[in-house]
Protein backbone atom coordinates (compact mmCIF):
# COMPACT_ATOMS: atom_id res chain seq x y z
CA UNK A 1 0.00 0.00 0.00
CA UNK A 2 1.26 3.47 -0.69
CA UNK A 3 0.03 6.88 0.29
CA UNK A 4 -0.74 9.55 -2.31
CA UNK A 5 -0.33 13.31 -2.00
CA UNK A 6 -4.11 13.57 -1.88
CA UNK A 7 -4.24 11.13 1.05
CA UNK A 8 -1.53 13.10 2.82
CA UNK A 9 -3.75 16.18 2.49
CA UNK A 10 -6.70 14.22 3.87
CA UNK A 11 -4.70 12.86 6.84
CA UNK A 12 -3.34 16.35 7.59
CA UNK A 13 -6.93 17.57 7.71
CA UNK A 14 -7.87 14.82 10.17
CA UNK A 15 -4.83 15.65 12.32
CA UNK A 16 -5.60 19.38 12.22
CA UNK A 17 -2.32 20.20 10.54
CA UNK A 18 -1.83 22.75 7.81
CA UNK A 19 0.99 21.69 5.50
CA UNK A 20 2.88 23.74 2.92
CA UNK A 21 3.26 22.31 -0.59
CA UNK A 22 6.87 21.35 0.21
CA UNK A 23 5.81 19.61 3.42
CA UNK A 24 3.11 17.67 1.58
CA UNK A 25 5.65 16.38 -0.91
CA UNK A 26 8.21 15.62 1.78
CA UNK A 27 5.74 13.70 3.94
CA UNK A 28 4.35 11.79 0.96
CA UNK A 29 7.85 10.59 0.17
CA UNK A 30 8.87 9.87 3.77
CA UNK A 31 5.61 8.20 4.81
CA UNK A 32 5.83 5.99 1.73
CA UNK A 33 9.32 4.90 2.73
CA UNK A 34 8.13 4.09 6.26
CA UNK A 35 4.99 2.29 5.06
CA UNK A 36 7.02 0.30 2.56
CA UNK A 37 9.27 -0.77 5.41
CA UNK A 38 6.18 -1.67 7.47
CA UNK A 39 5.00 -4.02 4.71
CA UNK A 40 7.27 -6.66 6.24
CA UNK A 41 4.64 -7.09 8.98
CA UNK A 42 2.31 -8.43 6.28
CA UNK A 43 4.61 -11.42 5.77
CA UNK A 44 3.75 -12.72 9.25
CA UNK A 45 0.70 -14.90 9.71
CA UNK A 46 -1.17 -13.37 12.63
CA UNK A 47 -4.68 -14.73 12.01
CA UNK A 48 -4.68 -16.69 15.27
CA UNK A 49 -2.79 -14.10 17.32
CA UNK A 50 -4.49 -11.88 19.87
CA UNK A 51 -3.46 -8.21 19.76
CA UNK A 52 -1.48 -6.72 22.68
CA UNK A 53 -2.55 -3.20 23.53
CA UNK A 54 -0.62 -3.12 26.79
CA UNK A 55 2.45 -5.00 27.97
CA UNK A 56 1.00 -5.52 31.43
CA UNK A 57 -2.40 -7.16 31.76
CA UNK A 58 -4.58 -4.72 33.70
CA UNK A 59 -8.31 -4.93 34.12
CA UNK A 60 -10.38 -1.81 34.64
CA UNK A 61 -8.90 0.14 37.51
CA UNK A 62 -11.76 1.60 39.50
CA UNK A 63 -12.04 3.90 42.48
CA UNK A 64 -14.83 5.28 44.62
CA UNK A 65 -16.59 8.24 43.06
CA UNK A 66 -15.58 10.68 45.75
CA UNK A 67 -15.04 14.40 45.50
CA UNK A 68 -11.34 15.18 45.74
CA UNK A 69 -9.53 18.50 45.75
CA UNK A 70 -8.52 19.79 42.35
CA UNK A 71 -6.07 22.47 41.29
CA UNK A 72 -7.07 26.06 42.06
CA UNK A 73 -8.54 27.96 39.12
CA UNK A 74 -5.82 30.62 38.97
CA UNK A 75 -3.17 27.93 38.61
CA UNK A 76 -5.13 26.09 35.95
CA UNK A 77 -5.48 29.29 33.95
CA UNK A 78 -1.81 30.20 34.36
CA UNK A 79 -0.90 28.90 30.91
CA UNK A 80 -4.11 29.84 29.10
CA UNK A 81 -3.38 31.92 25.99
CA UNK A 82 -6.50 34.06 26.56
CA UNK A 83 -8.92 34.21 29.48
CA UNK A 84 -11.70 36.31 30.87
CA UNK A 85 -13.56 36.02 34.20
CA UNK A 86 -11.96 32.71 35.05
CA UNK A 87 -12.80 31.18 31.69
CA UNK A 88 -10.72 30.34 28.64
CA UNK A 89 -11.53 32.50 25.64
CA UNK A 90 -11.58 31.16 22.07
CA UNK A 91 -12.60 32.63 18.72
CA UNK A 92 -16.28 32.38 17.77
CA UNK A 93 -17.39 28.79 17.18
CA UNK A 94 -20.63 29.69 15.38
CA UNK A 95 -20.76 31.94 12.38
Amino acid sequence: MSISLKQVEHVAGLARLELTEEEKEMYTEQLNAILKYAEKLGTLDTDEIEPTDHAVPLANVLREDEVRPSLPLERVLLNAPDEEDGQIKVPAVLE
Partner: protein
Amino acid sequence: MTLYQQSIGEIHKKLADRQLSVEELVAESLTRIEQVDGRLGAFLSVDGEGARRKARELDGKLQQGGQAGLLFGLPAGVKDNMNTEGLKATCASKFLANHTSIYDATAIHKLQQQNYVLVGKTNMDEFAMGGSNENSGFHAVRNPWNTEYVPGGSSGGSAAAVAAGEVYFALGSDTGGSIRQPASYCGIVGLKPTYGLVSRFGLVAFASSLDQIGPLTKNVEDSAHVLQAIAGHDPSDSTSLDVAIPDYRQALTGDIKGLRVAVPKEYLGEGVAPAVRAAVRNALAELEKLGAVWEEVSLPHTEYAVAAYYLLASSEASSNLARFDGVRYGVRSENADNLIDLYRKSRSEGFGPEVKRRIMLGTYALSSGYYDAYYLKAQKVRTLIKRDFDQVFERFDIIVGPTAPTPAFKLGEQAADPLTMYLNDILTIPVSLAGIPAISVPCGMDNGLPIGLQIIGKALDEPTVLRAAHAFEQHTEYHKARPAL
Protein backbone atom coordinates in the same frame (compact mmCIF):
# COMPACT_ATOMS: atom_id res chain seq x y z
CA MET B 1 38.97 12.92 41.28
CA THR B 2 37.19 16.26 41.29
CA LEU B 3 33.79 16.51 42.87
CA TYR B 4 31.74 16.59 39.68
CA GLN B 5 33.27 13.31 38.47
CA GLN B 6 32.08 11.41 41.51
CA SER B 7 29.07 9.16 42.01
CA ILE B 8 26.03 9.60 44.25
CA GLY B 9 27.51 7.05 46.67
CA GLU B 10 30.80 8.99 46.99
CA ILE B 11 29.13 12.39 47.38
CA HIS B 12 26.64 11.02 49.89
CA LYS B 13 29.50 9.88 52.12
CA LYS B 14 31.04 13.36 52.07
CA LEU B 15 27.71 15.01 52.91
CA ALA B 16 26.93 12.54 55.67
CA ASP B 17 30.42 13.02 57.17
CA ARG B 18 29.97 16.82 56.98
CA GLN B 19 33.06 17.14 54.77
CA LEU B 20 30.94 19.00 52.27
CA SER B 21 27.89 21.23 52.49
CA VAL B 22 24.96 21.01 50.11
CA GLU B 23 25.54 24.66 49.22
CA GLU B 24 29.11 23.90 48.12
CA LEU B 25 27.92 20.89 46.17
CA VAL B 26 25.20 22.83 44.37
CA ALA B 27 27.60 25.71 43.65
CA GLU B 28 30.01 23.21 42.08
CA SER B 29 27.21 21.83 39.92
CA LEU B 30 26.13 25.30 38.75
CA THR B 31 29.75 26.27 38.01
CA ARG B 32 30.20 23.12 35.98
CA ILE B 33 27.06 23.92 33.97
CA GLU B 34 28.37 27.44 33.36
CA GLN B 35 31.69 26.05 32.18
CA VAL B 36 30.54 23.32 29.84
CA ASP B 37 26.90 23.70 28.89
CA GLY B 38 27.59 26.33 26.26
CA ARG B 39 29.36 23.55 24.37
CA LEU B 40 26.84 20.80 25.20
CA GLY B 41 23.38 22.35 25.27
CA ALA B 42 22.19 19.72 27.75
CA PHE B 43 19.91 22.11 29.64
CA LEU B 44 16.85 24.02 28.47
CA SER B 45 16.49 25.86 31.78
CA VAL B 46 18.65 26.13 34.88
CA ASP B 47 17.12 27.20 38.18
CA GLY B 48 20.24 28.40 39.98
CA GLU B 49 18.36 30.52 42.47
CA GLY B 50 15.93 27.75 43.40
CA ALA B 51 18.75 25.20 43.69
CA ARG B 52 20.81 27.47 45.99
CA ARG B 53 17.77 28.21 48.14
CA LYS B 54 17.03 24.49 48.46
CA ALA B 55 20.69 23.85 49.32
CA ARG B 56 20.62 26.34 52.20
CA GLU B 57 17.39 24.81 53.46
CA LEU B 58 18.93 21.33 53.40
CA ASP B 59 22.14 22.48 55.10
CA GLY B 60 19.91 23.93 57.81
CA LYS B 61 18.26 20.53 58.25
CA LEU B 62 21.66 18.90 58.66
CA GLN B 63 22.75 21.49 61.20
CA GLN B 64 19.67 20.70 63.23
CA GLY B 65 20.79 17.10 63.39
CA GLY B 66 18.88 15.82 60.37
CA GLN B 67 20.03 12.65 58.67
CA ALA B 68 21.24 12.71 55.09
CA GLY B 69 19.53 9.98 53.07
CA LEU B 70 21.18 8.66 49.94
CA LEU B 71 19.84 11.31 47.58
CA PHE B 72 19.93 14.10 50.17
CA GLY B 73 21.33 17.30 48.64
CA LEU B 74 22.21 15.67 45.34
CA PRO B 75 21.90 18.03 42.34
CA ALA B 76 19.83 16.48 39.55
CA GLY B 77 18.49 17.24 36.11
CA VAL B 78 14.98 16.34 34.96
CA LYS B 79 13.96 15.79 31.36
CA ASP B 80 11.79 18.65 30.18
CA ASN B 81 8.75 16.44 29.56
CA MET B 82 8.20 16.04 33.31
CA ASN B 83 6.30 18.54 35.40
CA THR B 84 8.14 20.29 38.22
CA GLU B 85 5.89 22.94 39.72
CA GLY B 86 6.88 26.53 39.00
CA LEU B 87 9.46 25.67 36.34
CA LYS B 88 8.95 25.43 32.63
CA ALA B 89 8.06 22.13 30.98
CA THR B 90 8.50 22.65 27.25
CA CYS B 91 9.05 19.09 25.97
CA ALA B 92 11.64 20.90 23.81
CA SER B 93 8.72 22.06 21.67
CA LYS B 94 8.09 25.61 20.48
CA PHE B 95 4.45 24.79 21.14
CA LEU B 96 5.15 24.79 24.89
CA ALA B 97 7.98 27.35 24.88
CA ASN B 98 6.35 29.36 27.65
CA HIS B 99 4.53 26.60 29.47
CA THR B 100 4.98 26.58 33.25
CA SER B 101 4.23 23.42 35.24
CA ILE B 102 1.38 23.87 37.69
CA TYR B 103 2.02 20.66 39.62
CA ASP B 104 4.74 18.07 40.30
CA ALA B 105 4.98 14.71 38.58
CA THR B 106 4.77 11.82 41.06
CA ALA B 107 8.40 10.82 40.38
CA ILE B 108 9.43 14.40 41.20
CA HIS B 109 7.35 14.41 44.35
CA LYS B 110 9.10 11.21 45.44
CA LEU B 111 12.54 12.71 44.80
CA GLN B 112 11.55 15.74 46.87
CA GLN B 113 10.71 13.44 49.74
CA GLN B 114 14.34 12.29 49.49
CA ASN B 115 15.49 15.93 49.58
CA TYR B 116 17.15 16.01 46.17
CA VAL B 117 18.05 19.33 44.56
CA LEU B 118 16.53 20.13 41.19
CA VAL B 119 19.08 22.12 39.20
CA GLY B 120 17.37 22.35 35.84
CA LYS B 121 15.37 20.83 33.03
CA THR B 122 17.20 18.89 30.38
CA ASN B 123 17.01 19.09 26.62
CA MET B 124 15.41 16.31 24.57
CA ASP B 125 13.99 15.49 21.18
CA GLU B 126 10.70 17.35 20.81
CA PHE B 127 8.00 15.40 22.70
CA ALA B 128 10.59 12.60 23.12
CA MET B 129 10.44 11.74 19.43
CA GLY B 130 13.91 11.02 18.17
CA GLY B 131 17.15 9.24 18.80
CA SER B 132 19.76 11.98 18.41
CA ASN B 133 18.41 15.07 20.18
CA GLU B 134 18.60 16.93 16.88
CA ASN B 135 14.80 17.17 16.99
CA SER B 136 14.83 19.60 19.91
CA GLY B 137 12.77 22.64 18.99
CA PHE B 138 15.40 24.87 20.62
CA HIS B 139 18.92 23.55 20.08
CA ALA B 140 20.77 20.27 19.61
CA VAL B 141 22.69 18.54 22.41
CA ARG B 142 26.29 17.46 21.85
CA ASN B 143 28.07 14.37 23.09
CA PRO B 144 30.51 15.17 25.93
CA TRP B 145 32.99 12.62 24.54
CA ASN B 146 33.18 14.39 21.22
CA THR B 147 31.05 17.44 20.56
CA GLU B 148 30.82 16.68 16.83
CA TYR B 149 28.71 13.65 17.75
CA VAL B 150 25.12 13.29 18.96
CA PRO B 151 24.44 12.25 22.57
CA GLY B 152 21.58 9.99 21.48
CA GLY B 153 17.96 10.59 22.30
CA SER B 154 15.43 11.34 23.22
CA SER B 155 16.83 11.82 26.77
CA GLY B 156 20.07 13.20 25.29
CA GLY B 157 20.21 16.23 27.58
CA SER B 158 19.85 14.06 30.68
CA ALA B 159 22.58 11.66 29.47
CA ALA B 160 25.01 14.43 28.46
CA ALA B 161 24.45 16.30 31.74
CA VAL B 162 25.31 13.23 33.83
CA ALA B 163 28.27 12.19 31.65
CA ALA B 164 29.73 15.70 31.80
CA GLY B 165 29.29 15.94 35.59
CA GLU B 166 26.83 18.84 35.44
CA VAL B 167 24.51 16.89 37.75
CA TYR B 168 24.90 13.67 39.75
CA PHE B 169 21.88 11.96 38.27
CA ALA B 170 19.03 12.72 35.93
CA LEU B 171 15.58 11.41 35.10
CA GLY B 172 14.76 10.45 31.56
CA SER B 173 11.83 8.77 29.86
CA ASP B 174 12.07 5.73 27.62
CA THR B 175 9.45 4.85 25.01
CA GLY B 176 11.54 2.86 22.53
CA GLY B 177 15.03 3.25 23.98
CA SER B 178 15.18 6.91 24.97
CA ILE B 179 17.00 6.28 28.27
CA ARG B 180 19.17 3.31 27.27
CA GLN B 181 20.42 4.52 23.89
CA PRO B 182 21.66 7.97 25.07
CA ALA B 183 23.20 6.29 28.14
CA SER B 184 25.05 3.98 25.76
CA TYR B 185 26.22 6.86 23.52
CA CYS B 186 27.37 8.94 26.51
CA GLY B 187 29.08 6.15 28.47
CA ILE B 188 26.80 6.12 31.51
CA VAL B 189 24.18 3.84 33.07
CA GLY B 190 20.56 4.12 31.96
CA LEU B 191 17.71 2.01 33.31
CA LYS B 192 14.26 1.53 31.81
CA PRO B 193 12.16 -0.07 34.54
CA THR B 194 9.29 -2.50 33.95
CA TYR B 195 6.30 -0.71 32.43
CA GLY B 196 4.15 0.51 35.32
CA LEU B 197 6.83 0.38 38.03
CA VAL B 198 7.32 4.16 38.04
CA SER B 199 4.25 6.39 37.88
CA ARG B 200 3.76 8.30 34.63
CA PHE B 201 1.62 10.94 36.35
CA GLY B 202 3.04 14.32 35.37
CA LEU B 203 5.06 12.93 32.45
CA VAL B 204 3.78 14.44 29.21
CA ALA B 205 2.45 11.44 27.30
CA PHE B 206 4.02 10.38 24.01
CA ALA B 207 2.96 6.72 23.67
CA SER B 208 1.09 5.77 26.81
CA SER B 209 1.42 1.99 26.51
CA LEU B 210 5.22 2.28 26.27
CA ASP B 211 6.39 5.41 28.18
CA GLN B 212 8.36 4.79 31.34
CA ILE B 213 10.46 7.08 33.56
CA GLY B 214 13.89 5.92 34.71
CA PRO B 215 17.29 7.05 36.02
CA LEU B 216 20.49 8.04 34.22
CA THR B 217 23.51 7.73 36.50
CA LYS B 218 27.28 7.22 36.55
CA ASN B 219 27.09 3.66 37.90
CA VAL B 220 24.72 0.82 38.72
CA GLU B 221 24.60 1.45 42.45
CA ASP B 222 23.43 5.02 41.80
CA SER B 223 20.81 3.64 39.44
CA ALA B 224 19.48 1.41 42.22
CA HIS B 225 19.40 4.40 44.61
CA VAL B 226 17.31 6.51 42.24
CA LEU B 227 15.01 3.64 41.25
CA GLN B 228 14.38 2.94 44.93
CA ALA B 229 13.22 6.53 45.35
CA ILE B 230 10.91 6.77 42.34
CA ALA B 231 9.34 3.27 42.08
CA GLY B 232 5.95 2.49 43.56
CA HIS B 233 2.22 2.42 43.05
CA ASP B 234 0.41 5.68 42.36
CA PRO B 235 -3.39 5.93 42.27
CA SER B 236 -3.01 8.92 39.93
CA ASP B 237 -1.66 6.62 37.21
CA SER B 238 -4.13 3.84 36.49
CA THR B 239 -1.44 1.80 34.69
CA SER B 240 0.89 1.96 37.67
CA LEU B 241 1.50 -1.47 39.21
CA ASP B 242 0.35 -2.17 42.74
CA VAL B 243 3.27 -4.37 43.77
CA ALA B 244 5.69 -4.50 46.70
CA ILE B 245 8.94 -2.67 45.94
CA PRO B 246 12.02 -4.74 46.82
CA ASP B 247 15.22 -3.30 48.26
CA TYR B 248 17.23 -2.83 45.08
CA ARG B 249 20.48 -2.12 46.90
CA GLN B 250 20.32 -5.53 48.55
CA ALA B 251 20.35 -7.06 45.09
CA LEU B 252 23.86 -5.73 44.46
CA THR B 253 25.65 -8.75 45.89
CA GLY B 254 28.36 -9.06 43.25
CA ASP B 255 27.50 -12.75 42.98
CA ILE B 256 26.29 -14.04 39.63
CA LYS B 257 27.50 -17.63 39.88
CA GLY B 258 25.19 -19.87 37.89
CA LEU B 259 23.27 -16.96 36.35
CA ARG B 260 21.76 -18.14 33.08
CA VAL B 261 22.45 -15.64 30.31
CA ALA B 262 20.77 -15.74 26.90
CA VAL B 263 22.45 -14.04 23.95
CA PRO B 264 20.07 -13.50 21.02
CA LYS B 265 21.83 -14.13 17.72
CA GLU B 266 19.68 -11.38 16.17
CA TYR B 267 21.36 -8.84 18.50
CA LEU B 268 24.84 -9.55 17.16
CA GLY B 269 23.93 -9.95 13.51
CA GLU B 270 24.01 -7.82 10.41
CA GLY B 271 24.02 -4.07 11.01
CA VAL B 272 25.82 -4.31 14.34
CA ALA B 273 29.23 -2.62 14.12
CA PRO B 274 32.24 -4.96 14.54
CA ALA B 275 33.55 -2.88 17.47
CA VAL B 276 30.19 -3.22 19.25
CA ARG B 277 30.11 -6.95 18.61
CA ALA B 278 33.65 -7.33 19.98
CA ALA B 279 32.84 -5.29 23.10
CA VAL B 280 29.78 -7.43 23.82
CA ARG B 281 31.76 -10.65 23.31
CA ASN B 282 34.35 -9.38 25.79
CA ALA B 283 31.59 -8.58 28.24
CA LEU B 284 30.22 -12.11 27.89
CA ALA B 285 33.69 -13.53 28.61
CA GLU B 286 33.77 -11.32 31.71
CA LEU B 287 30.36 -12.57 32.89
CA GLU B 288 31.54 -16.14 32.28
CA LYS B 289 34.61 -15.53 34.46
CA LEU B 290 32.24 -14.47 37.21
CA GLY B 291 30.42 -17.77 37.01
CA ALA B 292 27.55 -16.96 34.67
CA VAL B 293 26.75 -19.38 31.89
CA TRP B 294 25.66 -18.12 28.51
CA GLU B 295 24.09 -19.64 25.48
CA GLU B 296 23.00 -18.32 22.12
CA VAL B 297 19.24 -18.09 21.61
CA SER B 298 16.85 -16.66 19.03
CA LEU B 299 14.27 -13.88 19.34
CA PRO B 300 12.88 -14.56 15.87
CA HIS B 301 10.56 -11.55 15.60
CA THR B 302 13.24 -8.95 16.35
CA GLU B 303 13.32 -7.73 12.75
CA TYR B 304 9.63 -6.80 12.90
CA ALA B 305 9.87 -4.73 16.06
CA VAL B 306 10.83 -1.38 14.55
CA ALA B 307 7.95 -1.44 12.06
CA ALA B 308 5.43 -2.47 14.73
CA TYR B 309 6.77 0.13 17.16
CA TYR B 310 6.60 3.07 14.77
CA LEU B 311 3.00 2.25 13.89
CA LEU B 312 1.93 1.78 17.53
CA ALA B 313 3.90 4.63 19.08
CA SER B 314 2.90 7.06 16.34
CA SER B 315 -0.74 6.03 16.64
CA GLU B 316 -0.71 6.66 20.37
CA ALA B 317 1.16 9.90 19.83
CA SER B 318 -1.34 11.17 17.28
CA SER B 319 -4.05 10.67 19.89
CA ASN B 320 -2.07 12.03 22.86
CA LEU B 321 -0.90 15.12 21.02
CA ALA B 322 -4.44 16.02 19.96
CA ARG B 323 -4.65 17.91 23.27
CA PHE B 324 -2.21 20.52 21.97
CA ASP B 325 -4.82 22.61 20.24
CA GLY B 326 -3.90 26.14 21.29
CA VAL B 327 -6.93 26.51 23.53
CA ARG B 328 -5.94 25.82 27.14
CA TYR B 329 -2.16 26.12 27.07
CA GLY B 330 0.74 26.42 24.68
CA VAL B 331 1.02 28.44 21.53
CA ARG B 332 -2.08 30.08 20.11
CA SER B 333 -1.74 31.26 16.55
CA GLU B 334 -2.40 34.96 16.00
CA ASN B 335 -3.55 34.25 12.45
CA ALA B 336 -6.74 32.28 13.03
CA ASP B 337 -10.24 33.63 12.60
CA ASN B 338 -12.27 30.57 13.60
CA LEU B 339 -11.83 27.63 15.98
CA ILE B 340 -10.83 24.92 13.47
CA ASP B 341 -8.39 27.34 11.93
CA LEU B 342 -7.00 28.06 15.39
CA TYR B 343 -6.33 24.35 15.95
CA ARG B 344 -4.69 23.96 12.56
CA LYS B 345 -2.55 27.06 12.66
CA SER B 346 -1.47 26.69 16.29
CA ARG B 347 -0.40 23.08 15.76
CA SER B 348 1.30 23.77 12.44
CA GLU B 349 3.24 26.72 13.85
CA GLY B 350 4.12 24.99 17.13
CA PHE B 351 5.18 21.45 16.12
CA GLY B 352 8.49 20.56 14.46
CA PRO B 353 8.88 18.27 11.42
CA GLU B 354 9.43 14.95 13.26
CA VAL B 355 6.39 15.49 15.50
CA LYS B 356 4.23 16.30 12.48
CA ARG B 357 5.59 13.26 10.67
CA ARG B 358 4.63 10.94 13.52
CA ILE B 359 1.22 12.53 13.97
CA MET B 360 0.63 12.02 10.25
CA LEU B 361 1.80 8.39 10.36
CA GLY B 362 -0.30 7.64 13.44
CA THR B 363 -3.40 9.36 12.11
CA TYR B 364 -3.07 7.40 8.88
CA ALA B 365 -2.54 4.07 10.69
CA LEU B 366 -5.68 4.66 12.76
CA SER B 367 -7.82 6.03 9.95
CA SER B 368 -10.80 4.21 8.53
CA GLY B 369 -9.80 1.49 6.09
CA TYR B 370 -6.19 1.22 7.32
CA TYR B 371 -6.68 0.37 10.99
CA ASP B 372 -6.63 -3.43 10.50
CA ALA B 373 -3.69 -3.42 8.11
CA TYR B 374 -1.48 -1.23 10.25
CA TYR B 375 -2.52 -0.63 13.85
CA LEU B 376 -4.16 -3.98 14.59
CA LYS B 377 -1.47 -5.86 12.68
CA ALA B 378 1.22 -4.11 14.72
CA GLN B 379 -0.57 -4.99 17.97
CA LYS B 380 -0.59 -8.65 16.94
CA VAL B 381 3.10 -8.53 16.10
CA ARG B 382 3.62 -7.00 19.54
CA THR B 383 2.17 -10.22 20.97
CA LEU B 384 4.65 -12.28 18.96
CA ILE B 385 7.58 -10.16 20.18
CA LYS B 386 6.43 -10.49 23.77
CA ARG B 387 6.15 -14.28 23.34
CA ASP B 388 9.74 -14.45 22.05
CA PHE B 389 10.89 -13.00 25.36
CA ASP B 390 8.56 -15.17 27.45
CA GLN B 391 9.95 -18.30 25.84
CA VAL B 392 13.58 -17.34 26.43
CA PHE B 393 12.87 -16.39 30.03
CA GLU B 394 11.52 -19.89 30.69
CA ARG B 395 15.13 -21.08 30.55
CA PHE B 396 17.22 -17.98 31.30
CA ASP B 397 17.55 -15.27 33.95
CA ILE B 398 18.70 -12.40 31.76
CA ILE B 399 19.23 -11.56 28.10
CA VAL B 400 22.41 -9.75 27.09
CA GLY B 401 23.31 -7.86 23.91
CA PRO B 402 24.33 -4.42 22.71
CA THR B 403 22.17 -1.41 23.54
CA ALA B 404 22.63 0.14 20.11
CA PRO B 405 24.06 -1.28 16.89
CA THR B 406 26.74 1.42 16.67
CA PRO B 407 28.39 4.05 18.86
CA ALA B 408 27.16 7.66 18.49
CA PHE B 409 27.05 9.15 14.98
CA LYS B 410 27.88 12.69 13.87
CA LEU B 411 25.38 15.53 14.08
CA GLY B 412 23.59 15.87 10.76
CA GLU B 413 24.72 12.45 9.54
CA GLN B 414 21.27 10.81 9.64
CA ALA B 415 19.03 13.84 9.89
CA ALA B 416 17.73 13.60 6.32
CA ASP B 417 16.55 10.02 6.55
CA PRO B 418 13.98 9.21 9.24
CA LEU B 419 13.96 5.47 8.54
CA THR B 420 17.72 5.07 9.07
CA MET B 421 17.37 7.03 12.29
CA TYR B 422 14.53 4.75 13.44
CA LEU B 423 16.70 1.66 12.90
CA ASN B 424 19.18 2.82 15.58
CA ASP B 425 16.53 1.69 18.06
CA ILE B 426 16.26 -1.85 16.73
CA LEU B 427 17.79 -3.42 19.89
CA THR B 428 15.92 -1.33 22.45
CA ILE B 429 12.44 -1.30 20.90
CA PRO B 430 11.58 -5.01 21.39
CA VAL B 431 12.10 -4.60 25.17
CA SER B 432 9.76 -1.59 25.20
CA LEU B 433 7.06 -3.48 23.32
CA ALA B 434 7.32 -6.34 25.85
CA GLY B 435 7.22 -3.90 28.79
CA ILE B 436 10.18 -5.55 30.51
CA PRO B 437 13.15 -3.88 32.29
CA ALA B 438 16.57 -3.30 30.75
CA ILE B 439 19.72 -1.42 31.66
CA SER B 440 22.57 -0.07 29.57
CA VAL B 441 26.03 -0.12 31.14
CA PRO B 442 29.34 0.98 29.56
CA CYS B 443 31.29 -1.96 28.09
CA GLY B 444 33.89 -0.49 25.77
CA MET B 445 35.10 2.35 23.57
CA ASP B 446 35.49 2.76 19.83
CA ASN B 447 37.43 5.74 18.51
CA GLY B 448 36.88 7.60 21.75
CA LEU B 449 33.12 6.94 21.81
CA PRO B 450 31.44 4.70 24.41
CA ILE B 451 29.66 1.40 23.72
CA GLY B 452 26.79 0.15 25.89
CA LEU B 453 25.89 -3.35 27.04
CA GLN B 454 22.17 -4.01 27.40
CA ILE B 455 20.98 -6.37 30.15
CA ILE B 456 17.32 -7.34 29.88
CA GLY B 457 15.25 -9.00 32.60
CA LYS B 458 11.83 -10.50 33.29
CA ALA B 459 8.97 -8.18 34.19
CA LEU B 460 9.61 -6.72 37.68
CA ASP B 461 12.94 -8.52 37.95
CA GLU B 462 14.96 -5.32 38.26
CA PRO B 463 16.92 -6.95 41.14
CA THR B 464 18.48 -9.53 38.80
CA VAL B 465 19.12 -6.93 36.08
CA LEU B 466 20.84 -4.64 38.59
CA ARG B 467 22.77 -7.51 40.19
CA ALA B 468 24.19 -8.65 36.85
CA ALA B 469 25.01 -5.10 35.75
CA HIS B 470 26.63 -4.32 39.09
CA ALA B 471 28.75 -7.52 39.08
CA PHE B 472 29.97 -6.70 35.57
CA GLU B 473 30.76 -3.15 36.62
CA GLN B 474 32.68 -4.27 39.72
CA HIS B 475 35.07 -6.23 37.55
CA THR B 476 35.54 -3.73 34.74
CA GLU B 477 36.78 -0.14 34.49
CA TYR B 478 34.58 1.21 31.67
CA HIS B 479 32.21 3.09 33.96
CA LYS B 480 35.12 4.97 35.53
CA ALA B 481 36.09 6.73 32.30
CA ARG B 482 35.07 10.39 32.14
CA PRO B 483 35.05 12.63 29.09
CA ALA B 484 37.68 15.39 28.98
CA LEU B 485 35.70 18.58 28.59
